[in-house]
């Protein structure tokens, strides 16, 4: 079995079979990372550059760990403190790194489409680790994988994505991924943070959090991306929390037990309170563990197509 793509630029390019293949491979890697010795030699002849032009903790660490568990050689690059501030273009920077004989590039960039641009100009396998407000494919894969782990399958499940949909690459990738796997998707948030194009995605829209939570099996709570908000989209964080924050009281008032997810980083007390984040219904730390397994699967399957 082979993936139908050479790069992982977005979930949009993947077929449901590709996603299924990534999941079954991730099952194997999940077993590997729970062994006494958590390393396999598959990518020992592969060099991977992690290029992070934007801040990241989880994704960067998770990719780096996945690469090391597969025995790849790893190069890390952060834009701060590099020649990017001296005026070098993206393609020049990457070509210089590739001249050092790198096989794969994992890139996070603040501009939407940066990974696609790169894939057209350079000869290496590209994995998009988040490009602006466009896509974050590995996050969506690990979210769907976590739902599959919890419920056995994703098909038919109802998932609501709550919060800053407008600025969220996680939301867009999640919508594509969940729909490809046959889940029903709803978004919930203040009108100003729901993008206009949402109608074209066949997604339900709800502005009342309680109603949305009553409908769903899984709630994916997103962070308010203040760093991407050039204007004010709502009067105050306190008001946002009152209307769209998830606390224990609201969670306990629902007629059924739902699963709470969060892609991180959490702003405790804003979109989700501490007692919810740390509750039994939350799978936030499972998501992080699954992230390593899913990224190992993506790297392994894409590396098989090199050369």
């Amino acid at each position, binding site marked *: 079995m082979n993936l139908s793509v050479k790069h992982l630029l977005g979930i949009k390019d993947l077929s449901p079979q590709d996603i299924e293949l990534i999941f079954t*491979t991730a099952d194997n890697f999940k077993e590997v990372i729970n062994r*006494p010795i958590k390393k396999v030699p*598959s990518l020992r002849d592969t060099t991977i550059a992690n290029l992070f032009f934007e801040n990241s903790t989880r994704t960067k660490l998770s990719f780096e760990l996945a690469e090391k568990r597969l025995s790849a050689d790893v190069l890390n690059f952060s834009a701060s403190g590099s020649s990017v501030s001296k005026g070098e273009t993206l393609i020049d920077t990457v070509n210089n790194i590739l001249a050092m004989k790198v096989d794969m590039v994992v890139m996070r960039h603040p501009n939407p489409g940066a990974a696609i641009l790169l894939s057209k100009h350079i000869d290496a396998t590209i994995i998009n680790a988040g490009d602006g407000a466009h896509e974050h494919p590995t996050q969506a894969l690990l979210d769907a994988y976590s739902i599959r782990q919890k419920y056995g399958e994703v098909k038919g499940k109802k998932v609501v994505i709550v919060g800053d949909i407008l600025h969220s690459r996680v939301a867009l990738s999640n919508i594509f991924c969940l729909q490809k796997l046959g889940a029903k998707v709803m978004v919930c948030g203040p009108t100003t943070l729901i993008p206009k194009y949402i109608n074209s995605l066949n997604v339900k829209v709800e502005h009342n959090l309680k109603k949305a939570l009553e409908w769903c099996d899984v709630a994916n709570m997103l962070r308010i991306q203040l760093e991407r908000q050039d204007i004010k989209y709502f009067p105050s964080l306190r008001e946002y929390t009152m209307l769209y924050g998830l606390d224990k009281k609201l969670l306990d008032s629902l007629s059924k037990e739902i699963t709470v997810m969060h892609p991180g980083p959490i702003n405790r007390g804003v979109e989700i309170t501490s007692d919810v984040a740390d509750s039994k219904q939350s799978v936030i730390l499972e998501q992080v563990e699954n992230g390593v397994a899913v990224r190992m699967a993506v790297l392994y399957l894409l590396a098989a197509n090199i050369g």
Partner: protein
Amino acid sequence: MNQRVILNQQSFEITIARLCHQLIENHNDFTNSAIIGLQPRGILLAKRIHSELSKILGNNTLLFGNLDVTFFRDDFRRRETPLVANATKMDFIIENKNVILVDDVLYTGRTIRAGLDAMLAYGRPKKVELLVLIDRRYNRDLPIQPDYTGKSVDTISSEKVKVLWKETENKDEVILINEKN
């Protein structure tokens, strides 16, 4: 394509029984031994050996695991498409144990090499032995030889050895297939 049977139902049974008794000669009651089948086809032989041994010894506590070697193979990226991995199930550590690696057919020895590597994730065994149902002699790429052999056959590379199992193919049999004719 023509094929001939190299182990029929009856000789298959006798062979398995003989292998079990050979194991008992060296491992006594198996207190410090573990049987590890290599995925995907070796586990059927390992299971059979395990259940026969349990019957003979009247003991159901023999250590038994399935090991997948896909991620340890040396032909990653040298194949048309990547191999799909199978499940590894090892509920024990092999530190200081006598391990019996089990596979159905020994051919180039590369799977066994990968198996030796993969196994080390579960500890440092005291000793490792190799048990195979069919040894295809004169086809080795690596210096690997079995300690227990069901049957040795001389084959050429255009031939294929296939082990059929009651559990999956409704009969116990080993056939030699020549794909050229």
